């Protein structure tokens, strides 16, 4: 079945690519059928525990599904399918669609491949396929390819090569590429290898998960790929990094004698990622950039959860991972909808779309509430579990850091909603219509799912729990919530529901009061009708406040943000290029010089012959 799944995706990708030459409709049909077919097969035919293996290049490859990978493929396929529907409408009328759909399907395929690989070599192959297929997406727009594209591919390759080194080391030591064998033999490695293998692996994974020193590719890459793909990119593809990290942390780091340091360092890196990502997100004017930095920040929380590694922390990381896919998918789609309808994604340009694109607004509002972790939605459950786990495992300062990040996150959350949907309704955007249904419905579906998760988090917590049991955790049901009282038993059964109902009840009660009272004498006025010292704003006068939105806050945190990681990298790169440029001057262009080099080489070797060939 796995073969069929993969061949459907691969064949579908190629067919879609080829069909592009024939007709657009055929291409769309192929694309959709492939995606739906893969999803259908995955959910109906694939059973957990199934394994296939075959041999290639004298390596034994093994693919299979377990609960852990099932959980992640859930994210990939769920988000992927919705994004596929979205993409049909979003990409309509753009160029190189065959290329786009091809890369889309290939990246879905490679992500599934990653979670289903049971051996390192196919893991790596799928990993790289994921890298280049997503690279195609990053450069799809053709803007900033030389900057963002190269950044992305360079960092990804750096990570991939780190992983390749680790795999080579493992292979050289145990002569097997099976992940299971690597894990079971891990204890027999030399102490140096025991430290270095996880570090190398984690380097690879933290690139994809955009962890702090290695995150600089993320904002550019996320914002440059088409939004239909960015939702998958940020929602699912970055989760592959998390997937790997969880594997490494659970199987390797816990066997290290001094794993505490390891965990502390990574937890802190995650927290710093969260803080810096948040701060930078606040400073952005481009919605895509804002969401990109926000993704970095959100992944920071997840990394912290993974690094802490207690039952609750891991559960929260898994839960947040799925949740992040949901809300960040929705938000990127919303940005895509706005981009498609208005043609720009700058907060300083677009305002007041709420009445023009109400459904998009509702979806983004719900997603933002979930992102901010505000109670009635699912985001709170994840955040709350993270805090509890941090407190339970005595990481107090981390709590503060995470809390700071998530409080500051409100700032950019508000900026997102305000920038696009609220504020003055300008005449410039009066023509804007709601996005097509094919774009709105996936967003609303995901947003609706977020609402349901707020009341019934068990829907996701149960598969997450099963996944964790695969990794060797005890079943978490029932014993996790010793300290807290919010969920004193399983999350969806006890007190969360009354709370959510109470919130809904209070809200509705006061909403009704507000609405009914003076119903006849309440009137709607346009946003031009505001109290601005008696002045009547003219049609062309834009009174929306959107430039330097959080200037005071940014001034307050200025010292932290003065240094940008990317400038360091860029200066490093420039320095290297200077060195390279200098180096190639060895080739002077004078034939005689080359001849002299030959003689010098000869003389040097003759002089050193005893050292070299001694």
């Amino acid at each position, binding site marked *: 079945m796995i073969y069929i799944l993969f061949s459907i995706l691969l064949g579908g990708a190629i067919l879609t690519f080829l069909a592009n030459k024939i007709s657009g409709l055929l291409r769309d049909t192929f694309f959709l059928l492939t995606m739906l077919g893969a999803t259908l097969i995955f959910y109906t035919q694939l059973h957990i525990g199934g394994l296939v293996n075959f041999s290639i290049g004298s390596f034994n490859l093994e693919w299979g599904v377990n609960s852990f990978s099932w959980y992640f493929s859930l994210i990939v396929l769920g988000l992927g399918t919705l994004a596929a529907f979205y993409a049909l409408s979003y990409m309509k009328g753009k160029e190189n669609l065959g290329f786009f759909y091809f890369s889309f399907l290939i990246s879905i395929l490679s992500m599934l491949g990653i979670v289903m690989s049971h051996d390192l070599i196919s893991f790596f192959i799928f990993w790289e396929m994921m890298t280049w297929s997503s690279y195609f997406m990053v450069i799809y727009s053709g803007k900033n390819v030389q900057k963002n594209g190269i950044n992305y591919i360079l960092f990804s390759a750096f990570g991939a090569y780190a992983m390749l080194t680790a795999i080579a080391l493992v292979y050289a030591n145990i002569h097997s590429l099976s992940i299971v064998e690597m894990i079971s033999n891990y204890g027999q490695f030399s102490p140096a290898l025991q430290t270095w293998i996880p570090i190398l692996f984690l380097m690879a994974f933290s690139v994809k998960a955009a962890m702090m020193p290695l995150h600089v590719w993320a904002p550019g890459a996320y914002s440059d790929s088409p939004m239909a793909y960015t939702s998958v990119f940020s929602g699912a593809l970055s989760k592959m990094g998390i997937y790997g990290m969880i594997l490494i942390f659970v199987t390797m780091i816990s066997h290290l004698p001094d794993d505490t340091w390891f965990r502390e360092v990574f937890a802190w890196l995650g927290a710093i990622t969260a803080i810096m990502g948040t701060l930078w997100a606040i400073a952005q004017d481009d919605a895509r950039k804002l969401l990109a930095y926000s993704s970095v920040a959100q992944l920071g929380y997840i990394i912290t959860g993974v690094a802490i590694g207690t039952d609750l922390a891991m559960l929260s990381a898994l839960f947040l991972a799925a949740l992040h896919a949901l809300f960040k998918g929705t938000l990127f789609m919303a940005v895509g909808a706005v981009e498609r309808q208005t043609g720009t994604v700058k907060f300083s340009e677009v305002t007041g779309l709420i009445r023009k694109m109400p459904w998009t607004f509702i979806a983004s509002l719900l997603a933002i509430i979930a992102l901010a972790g505000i109670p009635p939605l699912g985001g709170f459950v994840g955040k709350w579990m993270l805090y509890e786990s941090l407190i339970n495992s005595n990481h107090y300062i981390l709590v503060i850091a995470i809390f700071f990040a998530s409080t500051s996150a409100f700032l950019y959350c508000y900026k997102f909603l305000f920038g696009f949907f609220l504020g003055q309704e300008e005449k410039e955007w009066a023509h804007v219509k709601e996005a097509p249904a094919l774009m709105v419905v996936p967003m609303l579906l995901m947003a609706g799912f977020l609402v349901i998760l707020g009341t019934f988090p068990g829907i996701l917590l149960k598969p997450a729990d099963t996944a964790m049991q695969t990794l060797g955790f005890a079943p978490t049901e029932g014993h996790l919530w010793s300290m807290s009282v919010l969920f004193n038993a399983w999350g969806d059964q006890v007190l969360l529901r009354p709370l959510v109902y109470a919130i809904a009840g209070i809200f509705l009660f006061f909403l009704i009061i507000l609405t009914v009272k003076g119903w006849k004498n309440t009137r709607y006025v346009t946003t031009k009708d505001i109290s601005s010292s008696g002045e009547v704003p003219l049609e062309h006068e834009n009174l929306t406040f959107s430039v330097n939105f959080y200037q005071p806050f940014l001034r307050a945190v200025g010292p932290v943000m003065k240094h940008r990681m990317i400038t360091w990298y860029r200066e490093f790169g420039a320095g290297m290029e200077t060195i390279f440029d200098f180096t190639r001057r060895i*080739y*002077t*262009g*004078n*034939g*005689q010089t080359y*001849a*002299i080099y030959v003689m010098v080489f000869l003389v040097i070797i003759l002089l050193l012959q005893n050292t070299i060939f001694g």
Partner: protein
Amino acid sequence: MEFKLFDLSIVEYAFFVTSVLIILIGLYAALVKKTLIKIVIGLSILDAGINLLLISIGYLKAGTAPIFSPALVKNMPLTLENIKKLSEGMVDPVPQALVLTAIVIGFGVTAVALSLVIRLYRHHHTLNIDEIKNLKW
């Protein structure tokens, strides 16, 4: 066969010294002189020096030509010992063969080099190698 290089008579010694000197002269011309023609000449000298060196390896004072003439092999069965005995007085033929080949090759290379020099001169109007470096870095 024996190791001959350090078992030298004065004549042989002279051969070696001369050939090394010629090689050095050729190298000097090829590496230091700036004119293309001189460089080509240097390379030719280099070739000549090496050829001389090769020849001198096979040189045997008062050796005979390495030919098994009918007169020489008359009445002798063609066994290994006999052949060894016969060839003792002969100059080693292999280096000569080598040199012949090398001379031919050197000739070819020089011809190509000269044609290239002509073309370079046509394009650059100079023979100074320092000025012919369009291709660099």
